[in-house]
């Protein structure tokens, strides 16, 4: 009599367990099983546009690694999941990738929110997350490899440029960001930095909008008001992300703002955000990354043509002629991981971590990037780009060599 309920209850339990109790792949020596890498990039939701590019770059790089014989004689396999731009889903899926799929390492996340959601999981399970985006710093976990720059290497040089003669002697700053950890931390650091440059509080304005905000009427009006106050040239430090970027640019253009009036430094703007926009009225606004696709090196030509062939061969929905910095970072991450595993002769986290220190390679921008021996940050070059009329960036300035990343900014406490 209780058979049916018993069966139904246990049945649904088994349904879930069935998916979970897969045979555990033997990572023991001599195995020919593929090494799995978890790819934690959203393919739906507000971050889908950008993150799906990274997923496909990762798959392309994995194909390249496999074509060279794989790692430790084994093929590498990318396990793709879709966290759907939902931060708790990132945590859930990272647990799944590590515990159920036994991935050797995870490559993923764009927003700092998603990284912070995954952080406790990789720390509790002692796995490695390779994070390809520039971010706010203030973090140095032994379970995360930081493939792109903290603010000291990217944001501050751009701010210095704008405060200098060539940039227009900016003296007033309007900071608008999406409401989460990255913009908040960046702005906190900037406020501390401005204090050291004797910029008064009245010359600063700080505003936050929720993710996905598309109505910037009031904000742009406020920017115009702010810029009209006396005290010097005003600029906008824009830390909104995702859909909000084209929305804000469109509103600024519609209300008559040009880069010659009020320059906008968009810290998260990539070429994919400019797609579909008429960028002629946006010419001159700035962004800063470790790579822009206009850089002219043989490595970059190779990388761009690899991507183009990959997109055409697989019939992907991406633009074959568009390459952005996070894609390059993802590529570097997988290659450096492969190098570390080969050196350590193991995929174990501890061994890989030790072998990663000091690993280096030449990146498409022509710099010889190298992994810091202790902080797990990657030393990259730095560039400032200016939006051009072709929905891309022209390189305004680039650093001569790779820059030392500073995980913990000295300016945070000064705010």
């Amino acid at each position, binding site marked *: 009599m209780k058979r049916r309920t018993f069966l139904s209850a246990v049945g649904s339990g088994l349904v879930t367990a069935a998916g979970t109790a897969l045979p555990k792949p033997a990572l023991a020596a001599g195995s020919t099983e593929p090494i799995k890498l978890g790819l934690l990039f959203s*393919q*739906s*939701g*507000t971050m*889908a*546009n950008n993150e*799906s590019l990274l997923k496909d770059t990762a798959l392309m790089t994995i194909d390249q690694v496999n074509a060279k014989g794989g790692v430790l004689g084994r093929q590498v396999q990318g396990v793709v999941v879709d966290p759907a731009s939902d931060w708790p889903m990132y945590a859930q899926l990272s647990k799944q990738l590590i515990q159920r799929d036994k991935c050797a390492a995870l490559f993923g996340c764009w927003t700092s929110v998603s990284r912070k959601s995954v952080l406790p999981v990789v720390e509790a399970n002692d796995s490695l997350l390779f994070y390809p985006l520039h971010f706010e710093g203030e973090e140095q976990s032994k379970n995360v490899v930081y493939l792109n720059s903290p603010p000291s290497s990217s944001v501050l040089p751009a701010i210095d440029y*704008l405060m200098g*003669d*060539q*940039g*227009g002697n900016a003296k007033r700053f309007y900071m608008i960001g999406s409401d989460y950890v990255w913009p908040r931390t960046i702005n906190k650091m900037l406020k501390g930095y401005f204090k050291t440059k004797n910029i008064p509080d009245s010359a600063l304005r700080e*505003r*936050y*909008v*929720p993710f*996905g*905000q*598309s*109505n910037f*009427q*009031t904000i742009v*009006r*406020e920017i*115009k*008001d702010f*810029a*009209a*106050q*006396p005290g010097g040239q005003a600029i906008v430090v824009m830390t909104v992300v995702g*859909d909000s970027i*084209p*929305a804000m640019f*469109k*509103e600024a*253009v*519609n*209300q*008559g703002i040009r*880069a*010659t009036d009020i*320059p906008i430094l968009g810290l998260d703007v990539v070429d994919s955000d400019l*797609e*579909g*926009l*008429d960028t002629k009225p946006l*010419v*001159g606004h*700035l962004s800063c990354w470790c790579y822009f696709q*206009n850089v*002219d090196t043989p490595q970059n030509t190779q990388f761009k043509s690899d991507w183009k062939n990959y997109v055409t061969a697989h019939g992907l*929905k991406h633009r074959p002629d568009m390459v952005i910095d996070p894609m390059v970072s993802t590529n570097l991450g997988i290659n450096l991981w492969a190098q570390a595993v080969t050196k350590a002769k193991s995929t174990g986290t501890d061994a890989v971590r030790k072998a990663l220190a000091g690993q280096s390679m030449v990146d498409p921008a022509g710099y010889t990037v190298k992994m810091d021996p202790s902080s797990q940050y990657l030393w990259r070059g730095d560039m400032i780009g*200016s939006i*051009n*009329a072709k929905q891309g960036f*022209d*390189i*305004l300035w680039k650093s001569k060599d790779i820059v030392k990343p500073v995980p913990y900014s000295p300016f945070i406490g000064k705010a």
Partner: protein
Amino acid sequence: MMTGRWLFLTVLCWLLTGMSTSAWAATNHSALLAAFCATDGNKATALEQFVEAGVSDETQDQAWARLIVDAIRNSALVCNSSGLVTIQGTPPLDAATLKTAANSNPGDSPYVPSIVMMRKLMVASAEIDLFSGQRDTRADAARQVDKSFALLDPAIITKAIKRERDPDIASVLTLAMAKRGLGSNNRADRLAAIKAVAEVPSETARTALANFVAQDSVRSDPEVLAAVQSAIAKIDTSLSFGRAFSILFSGLSYAGVLLLTALGLSIVFGLMGVINLAHGEFIMIGAYSTYLVERFMQAHMPGLFDAYIFVAIPVAFVISAVCGMLLEFFVIRFLYRRPLETLLATWAVSIALIKLVQVLFGSQNVEFVTPGFLNGGMQVSPGFFVTYNRVFAIVLALLIFLATFAVVRLTKLGLLMRATTQLRDMARCLGVAAERVDRLAFGLGAGLAGLAGVVLTQIASVNPSMGTGFVVDSFMVVVLGGAGSLLGTVVSSLALGEINQFIEPFYGAVAAKVAVLLLIVLIIQKRPQGLFALKTRV
């Protein structure tokens, strides 16, 4: 014989001077370019030289300088390491001679102007344009010069004023020169400048005056000080009026969006008591229909591209209405008199629709190319700037509302709809095919949602889950206004739109939204039937 020889000598002299002038000119071009490209040279000074060439009397030089300045602005000037300067393009040109370049180094990248340089370039090309043959070019250039009066070269402007035969353009230029008086030490100049600047109040004018008054030399002079302060006060007054109008205008545009999204729901919910959680998805379907029309017209009728938004209106209406009627036929008609089940069923349909659109179109944002006439905006009065896309939204909302009102009040369908709502069984007794009326009414409601989607393509982001953000808001508008009352919908969307925009500048968009939601909930507690209750007898 004597005359012949003199003639010959004169012609020879002319020829020689001509040749050497042009040779000199060509050499001069190269020299100017070299000065510009020099790595530690002063690019600003070199730019000034270009401008000099541009405003000289030599038409050749004028055209050449114009081209060079344009090339620099477009990041197309390449200073090659070999010393050759080229302009990018197909084919690349030699910058000095403007002939096809022999061989341009692929390794060198074009000069990218900094922001400061961009400002100078803007003024430079405006100054060159002041000497163009076409009136419109000169008028635009004059306005540009006026806007950046602090950066202009007075010698060139004076020359341009002397040359200018059109009185309007000349007066603009004179005004710009007068504004420069702010920088002079002569008191009369300063007073004239203050007057000139205050004539056209704007944010930039206020900035200029505020920066001016901060100077010690101004503060020490009481007459000038008084003039500046009263000018600033005058500008402030007009600016605050402008700001108030801006808020009213944004409230109106927000209300327009609310009205559009809530109108269809008002009909469906009010007249038929059906809760449709898939309403947001009809909006989304309307937006994607617009996308399809845009793609189609871009491919097949590029000449009429700007009109795509007008073509999209009937297309989106029909597609959404058909989807609505299908929904009604397959799902809703089994669920009348069971509102809670309708709610869940329409929710199920909404998630399926979202996923379907995601699969078909991808989940990223769809970017729309704004039709030319909707780009930009207009400075109606100081401090009050309207963007055309929002004006369009407001106008369209009003027109759609009037059309809906007409349909409901004046057509047979509307009459049948109202009859079926007020006393369904009696209407059926009188021969009204209630099921068909329901279907058409539902179709109408869905079609209106589709129209909302068309308008939203210009002012909001379009992606498969865009509808979910509008459902709660539209329901609130309908419930507050009174289900079924079209007038109530208008009043409540106006009220909510304005309240939202009044709160937003102080507390931010999200807080404004939350406050409005809570306000509605409170009002509903007191008056559950809404502001304008429709009298029905069940």
